């Protein structure tokens, strides 16, 4: 299973992959590079990862979601490389017969991904400087 990709993420393709007669609700979260972070004007983000571990950790998170929300099917893609503002960096899609577990599973996966998966972003600002993003620093989100 490969959760990481250097090419664009095709969210329609993820949604189609989850189509099944028993599915009543699908929740898709897509994260995009936005033009402002911590008050600074962002031009692009360079995503890098400890790839072997990131793949394994994402596999564990998907497994956890399946145990917590029985019957859910989850797909995840995270992009690596340099992305400009507006590009999709991550997509999580969750399908279930009912909407509640689909919402909860998608939320669970993106929250855990942000906490645990060894992926980093180096932000390139419009003023030409660049910096590693550290979400544990106060005031940065």
């Amino acid at each position, binding site marked *: 299973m490969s959760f990481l990709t250097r090419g664009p993420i095709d969210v329609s393709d993820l949604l189609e992959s989850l189509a099944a007669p028993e599915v009543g609700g699908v929740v898709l979260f897509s994260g995009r590079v936005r033009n402002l972070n911590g008050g600074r004007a962002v031009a692009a983000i360079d*995503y890098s*990862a400890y790839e072997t571990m990131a793949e394994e950790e994402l596999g564990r998170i998907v497994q956890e979601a399946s145990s917590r929300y029985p019957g859910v099917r989850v797909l995840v893609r995270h992009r690596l490389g340099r992305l400009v503002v507006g590009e999709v960096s991550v997509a999580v899609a969750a399908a279930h017969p009912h909407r509640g577990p689909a919402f909860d599973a998608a939320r669970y996966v993106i929250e855990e*991904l*942000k906490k645990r998966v060894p992926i*980093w972003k180096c932000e390139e600002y419009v003023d030409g400087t660049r910096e590693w993003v550290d979400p544990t620093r106060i005031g940065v989100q």
Partner: protein
Amino acid sequence: MNVRVLLFASAADAAGRSEVNLDLPDGARVSDLLAELSRLVHGRALASRPMVAVNARYAAPDTVLAAGDEVAVIPPVAGG
């Protein structure tokens, strides 16, 4: 014993390289490895309180290392 240490993101920048081979005494723990690594990079900040992974899983500071382990220094993650 020889242990391969991978450095990523701000930790790689601080150390000026993305990989280090460390020679550690048998029975060394993750915390010993971090201390040795700090000496090696002459106090350049590796990242305050980096996480450490051993063989692609997060490991506590008291985890005992074995020869051939792949250790990674994980600065604060920021995926998404």
